[in-house]
């Protein structure tokens, strides 16, 4: 949902999905349509939702890389649990690609049912979303959801520096400016394009005297990094980390953590002077061709099972503190999270917009060759 690197061919979806659409209208036991249901309880309860979703049989997701926050396991588990086939489109797409697909494929059986998007895109596109509140709605902190249920944050983490500890040691952001890091430092995408990369530059800014309202020092940092020959203008992916092209990577901690699987010497560092948090959000599309399956997917993600699966992937689920309190949080997974000390901060809507517009006019000049 955030990668913009491989704009690969979109997967062909929806083989035989036509029949499923036809089945949609007749499945709800309460008689109400699931496409306008704002909660399971208001529309016949969970068992009615499950049977309606099973009748639809499919779910269209988009831009969910399998190694991103444990989505590979989550999708497999959901398919096994409910017998619903999950059609995955454009796994390396950006949040904007998701929204573009909602608009361009509206009315077809290929249209995305559910989205996992960055906040900037969520705020800008609420008119495309159908309001829905999962059973655990009250467990989501109030400032992490839309009061009307149009979007709700799902998981998040802290901006981090992942590095190959067999070659480097990183103890602060400024370390990266030394000559030991020649052609080593990379971002997860272009910050004018990818949310994770924008936050990477923002972290560099915070560590260099900037504020959430001022990303300038971060751009200067990367300009210096580029001038010194330390910056690699390649989008970091699992492949570039494996083959050593990008041995030092700015990315969310849960994404950086995932690289340990293939590279045991990979370490994740969250600088204490720049603890920058960020959450993604879920939303159901108004034009979802599988409205019941879409709602069931959200119920599943916000159940303790779904939340713990994200946690297993190194991401911090939005209901984490509520689950800690009611004892459903998986303590093994929680203990495996990277250590974080310092005061976490998060970009709000206007700060994110200000950072983006500053990057639009200054980023290319700073790192363009």
């Amino acid at each position, binding site marked *: 949902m955030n990668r913009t*690197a491989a704009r690969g061919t979109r997967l062909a979806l929806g083989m035989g999905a036509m029949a499923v659409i036809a089945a949609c209208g007749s499945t709800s036991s309460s008689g109400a349509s699931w496409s306008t249901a704002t909660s399971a309880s208001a529309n016949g309860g969970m068992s009615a939702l499950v049977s309606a979703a099973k009748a639809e049989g499919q779910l269209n997701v988009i831009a969910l890389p399998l190694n991103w926050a444990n989505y590979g396991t989550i999708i497999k588990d959901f398919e096994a649990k409910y017998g619903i086939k999950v059609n995955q489109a454009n796994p390396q797409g950006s949040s*904007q*690609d998701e929204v573009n697909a909602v608009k361009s494929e509206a009315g077809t059986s290929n249209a995305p049912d559910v989205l996992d998007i960055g906040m900037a895109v969520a705020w800008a596109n609420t008119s495309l979303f159908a309001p829905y509140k999962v059973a655990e709605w009250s467990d989501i902190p109030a400032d992490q959801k839309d009061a009307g249920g149009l979007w709700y944050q799902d998981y998040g983490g802290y901006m981090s520096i992942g590095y190959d500890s067999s070659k480097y040691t990183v103890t602060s952001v400024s370390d990266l400016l030394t000559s030991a890091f*020649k052609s080593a430092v990379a971002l997860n995408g272009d910050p004018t394009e990818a949310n994770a990369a924008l936050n990477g530059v923002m972290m560099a800014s915070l560590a260099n005297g900037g504020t959430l309202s001022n990303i300038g020092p971060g751009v200067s940092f990367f300009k210096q990094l580029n001038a010194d020959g330390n910056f690699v203008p*390649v989008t970091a992916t699992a492949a570039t980390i494996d083959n050593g*092209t990008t041995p030092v990577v700015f990315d969310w901690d849960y994404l950086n953590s995932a690289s340990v699987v293939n590279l045991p010497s990979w370490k994740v560092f969250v600088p204490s002077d720049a603890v920058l948090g960020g959450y993604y959000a879920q939303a159901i599309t108004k034009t979802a061709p599988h409205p019941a399956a879409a709602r069931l997917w959200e119920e599943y993600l916000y159940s303790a099972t779904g939340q713990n699966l994200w946690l297993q992937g190194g991401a911090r689920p939005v209901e984490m503190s509520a689950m800690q309190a009611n004892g459903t949080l998986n303590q093994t997974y929680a203990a495996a999270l990277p250590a974080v000390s310092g005061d976490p901060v998060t970009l709000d809507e206007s700060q994110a917009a200000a950072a983006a*517009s500053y990057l639009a006019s200054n980023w290319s000049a700073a790192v*363009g*060759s």
Partner: protein
Amino acid sequence: MTAVASTEAELVRRPLGGRLRLSSTWLGAAPFLVYAGAFLLLPTVLVAVGAFSGTHGPTFSNLAQLSQPYIVSAFVNSLVLSAVSASIGAVVGAVLAYAVATGSPDGIMRRLVTALCGVLSQFGGVTLAFAFIATIGTEGFIVIWLRQHGIDFYPNGVWLFSLTGLTLIYTYFQIPLMVIVFMPALDGVRPQWREATETLGGATWHYWRHVAGPLLLPAFLGAWLLLFANAFSAYATAAALLDIGGVIVPLQISRALSSEVGLDQANLAAALALGMVVVVAVITVGYSWLQRRSARWLPR
């Protein structure tokens, strides 16, 4: 003299019942026209309309944005990249094509080179970028091998992930493409012309300066323009190699379409695309003009 002769020949060959012939010709061309309309004209029109559209109706603001420094520099980079890679490709490709064209017309060498060029001229995108990353990337096998022998492949910093690297990679498909498009022109050069020059006492220099050079120049420049357009519109190779910084215009278009940080501007993308269409249109006009000039002397 030749002009009169060819006109007479056309008159003689013109069939009776021209109207009938016309309609069947159009019918035969219909698939092409439909194809060109759907995949060439329609997208161009949509791009043009998009470039002048905003959230509040028609506007020039998208085009005005093209004057922003980062967009200007992307256009400059694109033009320089295309010009340099086309020039290297054209010169090296022409020399290679000449070497092959002057050899045996049915020789194994010629067949091998043309077959190879046919394949390599279409080798691009992610696979090509990967091939270079795997050979001379920071952890490429040549770089590692040299490192093991105490040689630093990049003593002045890594240039592969920059315009320089992109230029090198583009020449990889530009040279074979040049061989393919320039070979017919070389084949059209008759040995008799050289013999005639020598009979009249001309040296090799005279032959190239006054006979072969002027004859081949339009074809050479035409091929150069084709190579230029080929590099100008390439996207996937660049995206796979250096997609950070929006260095060239196609990368800026991609950003304007898929930015997830609130910088998505589909209409700016259309304006950028329109700018590229204008550049390519100029090139196409120049190419067809040069084609006509070279066709005058090198009929096929």
